[in-house]
């Protein structure tokens, strides 16, 4: 038997048409203490994990949402049309670069990928996975891009911190034969130590 708060929160999340943040739940249920709400949320998550039913409570894009478990998608797609299609390699690469390096300009993305990214960028904007954050304060004022809330929702990420860590960059720092130091001395404008480019470490 669950507490009343458990059930109230469950009903709130169940009926919301998008993920509900903890803050929002606390606002809505101002007669309950924040700490108790947090405990109840953890209880709901554990409860659905334990029963391993058709759906579970997950934290995505900074909010809570009930979602089906991936194992059942082949049954669900028998009556629900799939909305997302597979992403191309270039779309995924571009998304990854934007996700890890945001805010980033088109020129910076293209420098990393070595190819023109206008078309990919436009299609990511149209799919609402990427958004325009504003303009960079450098000559020419290029547009700067970042990932959107939809990006987190579609890829089922709690926040940008839960992006998979970039393993290789850490390995790179351990490589003694790679003489980055000298390169940095030569061209000071490049002197952004690799690790500082990782906003999530």
């Amino acid at each position, binding site marked *: 038997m669950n507490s009343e708060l458990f059930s109230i929160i469950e009903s709130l999340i169940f009926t919301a048409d998008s993920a509900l943040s903890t803050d929002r739940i606390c606002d809505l249920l101002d007669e309950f203490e924040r700490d108790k709400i947090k405990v109840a949320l953890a209880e709901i998550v554990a409860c659905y994990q334990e029963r391993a039913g058709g759906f579970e409570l997950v934290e995505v894009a900074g909010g809570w949402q009930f979602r089906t478990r991936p194992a059942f998608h082949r049954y669900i797609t028998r009556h629900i049309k799939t909305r997302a*299609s597979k992403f191309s390699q270039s779309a995924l690469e571009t998304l990854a670069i934007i996700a890890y390096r945001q805010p980033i300009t088109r020129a910076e993305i293209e420098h*990393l990928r*070595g190819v023109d990214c206008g078309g990919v960028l436009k299609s990511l904007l149209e799919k609402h996975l990427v958004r325009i954050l504003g303009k960079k304060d450098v000559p020419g004022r290029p547009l700067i891009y970042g990932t959107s809330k939809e990006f987190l929702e579609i890829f089922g990420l709690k926040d940008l911190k839960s992006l998979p860590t970039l393993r290789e960059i850490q390995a790179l720092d351990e490589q003694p034969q790679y003489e980055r130091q000298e390169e940095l001395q030569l061209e000071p404008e490049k002197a952004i130590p690799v690790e500082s480019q990782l906003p999530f470490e």
Partner: protein
Amino acid sequence: MAVEAHYHREENLPLLDGFHEQYSVHLDKFDGPMDLLLHLIKKNELDICDISIAVITRQYLEYIKLMKDLNLEVAGDFLVMAATLLQIKSRQLLPIDVDEEPEEDEVDPRNELVRRLLEYQQYKEAGMVIGARALLGREVFTRSAPEPMLTAAQNVEGPLEVSLFELVDAFRSLLQRIPAESFHDVAPGDSLSIVDCINEILSLLQEQDTVQFDTLIQDEYSRERVIVTFLALLELCRLKLIRIFQGNDHGSIWFVPAVTTDSTDSTEVVTLHEL
């Protein structure tokens, strides 16, 4: 590029088969020069931090030649990389200048490329990891039945949700729809436009009550900037949106919004009824 290449590959299969094993890379596989380079490094089992530029450059150029032989359009990006490789190779061949600082001599010309390759490889891998996740709408689904109680109360407004791209796109599609003569100044050139300048002044006046002419042009002091700023001010003045003051002869020019916040509010009330 990938689609195009794939199409040609299908057509030219016999031709491809005749090529030496080294050339018969899958043309539809590469997302750009970095992707191709990574493939060549992997195929030759090279250490990414210690690549043999000679081997890689030769194979890279062979690949480009193959693309040309197959009448594929070689994207400019591939040529830029070819040039980069050749430049690194030529720098490696140059004799060390004894007069130069010794520490500069030690710099490996491959470093910049290696750094880019390592970084690219990371993002390529990260992209694959992200792409392998269960996606909402493909493997994972949310509840789709509308809650009857909420549907009934749908006219209550929540926070607005719209992206900047949608705004620009709405404007763009609107302009495509209407005849060309109905609008002007659609795509302002790189040069300064009066409209931009007016917008800039308007946004400044949202933050502060008075603005000095000099502060408008201090970031970018050019003849064009001064003229455009002045014209924008005249236009705003003509529209009675601002009032201009000058303390004394040759003194600083100041301007303030012609409508104070209070009177704007009262106007707004009136006009809401007018609408």
